[in-house]
């Protein structure tokens, strides 16, 4: 068991970091919305799922069917990222407008928000399984199985660490996630809308008094979180080359776990939590076997919430949880 861990250590580390960076990007959406609204946006997993289909749609429109290289690759990558960001960000904004805003105005209970989110989540999943995938992606009768995504890059080893080979796709995912994290950090800490977001997270009433337009801030929060999920979705389809209507469910819960692990409401915490969860899962899988991968993640979630619900870095986008 531990021999497996030792012999697989470096390959596991690389896999874990790549998967963990996708968790981290999705976790941002949970963490931002939680920071501002103290609401777990349960439907965020579907925001990610729709992002993967946005990326696939962009590929179909571009007519890319096989690996491309050089500048074409960079261009295609940017376009599918943009397509996924539009799809995801749009979905997140729609969710806020349709499923949450009315409840917010009514000052509804947390239960109402969560149930509305579950409803929206089920609705979007089934919408894709029943309508969008069969019709929009020309797969009649097959809405519930995996949809293959054309490979965008030749996956080849770049260099090796220890006895493990680092492939270009894994490096791309990792670097892409880190870059987006830095961009987001700059947005939240340096821009006007970022200041609005932080102000609302700290004290919504004072923020209103200081002239912050809360509805706009909330909308931007959903938009930015959704766009990050879109980036994650684009990287996901490049790395795994498939998607399905159900893809968001597990990834969503794991990203939420990552957000909680890092300290929900804390943007840097999402990165730390995502990478930590990815690594733990990868090491655990190399010890116990891949069929236990999800059980490991769920157990981590339960354990973290039991022993350190404030997460590794604590909550920082707003004050401590009420």
């Amino acid at each position, binding site marked *: 068991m531990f021999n497996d861990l030792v012999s697989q250590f470096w390959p596991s580390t690389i896999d874990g970091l790549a998967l963990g960076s996708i968790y981290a990007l999705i976790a941002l959406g949970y963490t931002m919305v939680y920071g501002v609204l103290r609401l777990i946006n349960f439907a965020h997993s579907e925001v990610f799922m729709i992002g993967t289909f946005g990326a696939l749609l962009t590929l179909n429109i571009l007519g890319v069917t096989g690996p491309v290289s050089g500048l074409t690759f960079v261009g295609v990558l940017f376009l599918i990222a943009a397509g996924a960001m539009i799809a995801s960000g749009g979905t997140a904004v729609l969710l806020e407008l349709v499923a949450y805003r009315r409840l917010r105005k009514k000052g509804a209970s947390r239960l109402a928000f*969560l149930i509305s989110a579950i409803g929206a989540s089920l609705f979007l999943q089934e919408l894709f399984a029943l309508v969008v995938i069969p019709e929009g992606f020309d797969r009649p009768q097959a809405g519930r199985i995996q949809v293959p995504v054309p490979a965008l890059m030749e996956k080849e080893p770049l260099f090796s660490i220890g006895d493990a080979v680092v492939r270009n796709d894994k490096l791309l995912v990792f670097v892409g996630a880190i870059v987006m994290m830095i961009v987001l950090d700059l947005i939240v800490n340096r821009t006007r809308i970022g200041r609005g977001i932080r102000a609302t997270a700290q004290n919504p*009433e004072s923020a209103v008094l200081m002239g912050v337009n809360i*509805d706009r801030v909330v909308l931007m929060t959903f938009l930015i979180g959704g766009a990050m999920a879109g980036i994650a979705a684009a990287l996901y389809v490049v790395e795994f080359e498939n998607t399905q209507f159900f893809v968001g469910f597990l990834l969503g819960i794991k990203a939420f776990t990552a957000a909680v692990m890092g300290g929900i409401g804390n943007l840097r915490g999402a990165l730390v939590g995502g990478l930590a969860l990815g690594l733990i899962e990868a090491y655990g899988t190399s010890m116990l076997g891949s069929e236990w991968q999800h059980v490991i993640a769920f157990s981590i979630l339960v354990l973290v919430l039991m022993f350190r619900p404030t997460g590794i870095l604590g909550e920082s986008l707003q004050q401590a949880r009420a």
Partner: protein
Amino acid sequence: MSHSKNTTGIGPVRAAMRKITTPFDEMRDWWGRAPGWVRWTVYGLVIVAALLAPSDSVGAFMSPESDWATILFYPIGVFVLLAIGLNVVVGQAGLLDLGFVAFFAIGGYVMAVIGTELGWNFWEIIVVAVLISSLSGIILGAPTLRLRGDYLAIVTLGFGEIVRLVAQNTDAIGGPRGINSIPHPPDMSDIEIIPDLQPFTYGVIDPRPYYYLLVALCVLVIIFARRLEKSRVGRAWAAIREDEDAAEIMGVPTFRFKLLAFAIGAAIGGATGTVFAAKMISIVPNNFPFILSATILAAVVLGGSGNLPGVILGAFLVGWLPERFRGFEDYRVLLFGGVLVLMMIVRPQGLLPSRQRSAEFAEGSGMGGMGAEVATPTAKAEVSSR
């Protein structure tokens, strides 16, 4: 942080109650004033109706396309019993449990494992199953019930998935293939009440005896839940649901009562699982997916969380409608999702809410009011002028 303050002089709850009176409420008031014999007659009629339900003439209307008695057992009967169990947790104590199916699964697997390995009979096993599932409720609850609201929801969701995945990965209990040839309950007597109906003979073909078993369990559980609701325990749950901090300050040992709600809910879920496994002969891990938890929760919320008749109605509708309108079966979950969102916007208290819960929802405080703090100033003003 901020609860909406009422400025009109009457108490906020009463003001909210006045605002939301509907024909349902008038019916409920009549029911509240009705003398004992009327109530008992109605109870009697309801039970008789439940016993007569699996007849062919009813089935011809209720489910022309599939065997009505089978549907009455699963999904309808099972959903009703599960919903009553979940209602204790969600409706009464106000704890959001997204992994309720775990206890259903545990009950089912206890029946399957003990029934096939040790050869005990159903009546012995159901006792053990209830104990084990409520114990698992306590084991899950003890560390997690200190968490609030939506955290608890996610942890329970995780737990539900852990139970299913562990069952899937453990070869000792059949792995993904599950467990076969689970024994039926022993026959209690082979009397025939009407031709072809032996209500106490549990075989493979006739689903009606199992349905009657569920009805009997439902009646027992309803009486139990009802007595609890009217007791000190029920009042403690209501207090926790409305404002946990206030309850704690008033001397309610909130943690212990939350644990109790979890254990009772789990026990009911476990008992349902036992009957389910005994009827189905074989169970597989995929009988217990997350979507089942969500469905039962939808039933509770749709019917009117916290109000037993409402919850039963909700579970009945959620179990029956997809079977009645088979053509829409594919769209069942889609509609569910849409209806859930719509319900939360239009009528968050459910179809048949209890009056207390309607008031709580109208006031927006139940289960930790939120969102008010992020509402715009105009919206807040609207809230306070009510």
